């Protein structure tokens, strides 16, 4: 087992990893069907092989990339390694092979904090808010590395998620599941990142909020901010995606534009619920 003796019961409670055998019955296909150009990718995790601690490899030669102003979406069965890939790109676990490049610069060796400073923003899948702090303080913490006036950005976030304006002085831990998700995305936006990474931002949000979130994501992306996200609401996500990746057992199974993947019958059947 990869069990870290020190780790039980504390820290990031997102243990949503370590399933050596994978979930689905699909066999990973070797490589991608469509040759992809990552030459001008803004952020790229290139042929990553990674795992937790001393445990087995969870990602196998996996590549994900996002171009400037575009939305890239990762889909795949539960336990495929989507969250792991995101964490690997953000430098939160050991990379055994491969590299991460941001805007042409190799950042493989940087710590997560340094990546934040370099302009990367990340919303993890779970425990993604400060539960004991108020909504407003959560947003302020998002802007921790900024030294300039943050009020404008905060107004923008409140405009995007009006409910947060009403609950700005409430402890974030008392919010409902969907409200928390909004706080989490808001927090990441506060950083004014150069690239935004979202791990299942719409899990548990109502359709109207989901639409709004996607709307906003499109808007944000069109301002030039590349967005890399993991989604289980795959149909909607792929609809807005410029690029889509299907991960299976830590490998790139399919990639292509969102439209292409949506049109692919096999992908539809196996991952999008038909």
């Amino acid at each position, binding site marked *: 087992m990869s069990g870290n003796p020190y780790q039980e019961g504390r820290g990031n409670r997102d*243990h949503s990893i*370590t399933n050596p055998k994978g979930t689905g019955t699909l066999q990973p296909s070797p490589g991608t069907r469509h040759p992809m150009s990552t030459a001008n990718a803004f952020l790229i995790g290139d042929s990553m092989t990674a795992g937790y601690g001393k445990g087995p490899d969870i990602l196998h030669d996996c590549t994900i990339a996002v171009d400037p102003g575009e939305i890239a979406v990762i889909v795949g069965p*539960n336990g495929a390694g989507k*969250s792991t890939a995101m964490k690997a790109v953000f430098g939160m676990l050991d990379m055994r092979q491969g590299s991460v490049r941001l805007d042409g610069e190799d950042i493989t060796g940087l710590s997560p904090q340094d990546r934040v400073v370099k302009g990367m923003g990340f919303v993890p899948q779970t425990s993604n808010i400060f539960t004991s702090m108020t909504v407003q303080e959560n947003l302020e913490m998002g802007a921790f590395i900024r030294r300039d006036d943050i009020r404008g950005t905060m107004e923008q976030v409140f405009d995007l998620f009006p409910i947060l304006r009403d609950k700005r002085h409430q402890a974030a831990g008392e919010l409902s*599941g969907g409200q928390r998700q909004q706080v989490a995305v808001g927090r990441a936006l506060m950083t004014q990142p150069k690239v935004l990474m979202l791990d299942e931002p719409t899990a548990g949000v*109502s359709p109207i909020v989901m639409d709004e979130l996607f*709307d906003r994501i499109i*808007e944000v992306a069109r301002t030039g901010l590349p967005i890399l996200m993991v989604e*289980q609401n795959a149909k909607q996500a792929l609809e*807005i995606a410029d690029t889509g990746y299907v991960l299976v057992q830590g490998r790139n199974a399919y990639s292509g534009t969102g439209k292409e993947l949506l049109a692919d019958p096999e992908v539809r059947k196996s991952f999008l619920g038909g």
Partner: protein
Amino acid sequence: MIVVDDLHKHFGGFHAVDGASLEIAEGTITGLIGPNGAGKTTLFNVIAGVLDPTSGRVTMDGEDITGLPPHTLFHKGLLRTFQIAHEFGSMTCRENLMMVPGGQSGETLWNTWFGRRRIADEERALRAKADEVMEFLTIEQIADLKAGQVSGGQKKLLELGRTMMVDAKIVFLDEVGAGVNRTLLYTIADAIKRLNEERGYTFVVIEHDMEFIDRLCDPVICMAEGKVLAQGTLDEIKANEQVIEAYLGTGLKNKDKLEAGA
């Protein structure tokens, strides 16, 4: 079978559930939808005995069950899953399932010392049952992993699996779908349907995925701001102006930008 009568739950000055009244008929799969923060989970928690209501009454088959603790409700056949998965992290997934059935003779200390044969027999049966459930949910390969170390979606499945270990009467599912792969989710939907038809479970399902609701639920109840906003078949609900405004929305506004960018 479950009747909720003018239920209120206040957190400080905030009215999370504000006079909800609803009825869940035996043998149905009732969908519960509503905007984030509408009070759905809170309502579940009050019915399931996790929270005490500020006022109001809940009855089950005519019996007042208001404020009964969860473990008592479990033995009356009322089960629930959690919106945020509550697995037993240091136990294997199989153990997570095997611990569920109540009244195991091995749960009495005396028997652990002096009734070992009986326990062994029971355990064998439990194990078979657990394996069957895991196979059904296509998670048999994680049987011997610690539940704390499986992926988010797998934890959700495990939650559902637990309700299948006993003969429940009514099961409350709080967003089983969030974070679960869609293909798998629809398999789950089929499972729920089968449990409903073959074993006669009643289900109450909170979910934001309309396709899922569509496959399963009739009737559908929509809550907003702690009250019941509308009730009926999904089509009726979908046509309801208020529901559209508060919950469903009208789709993406930025479609045009999408085209522009591509």
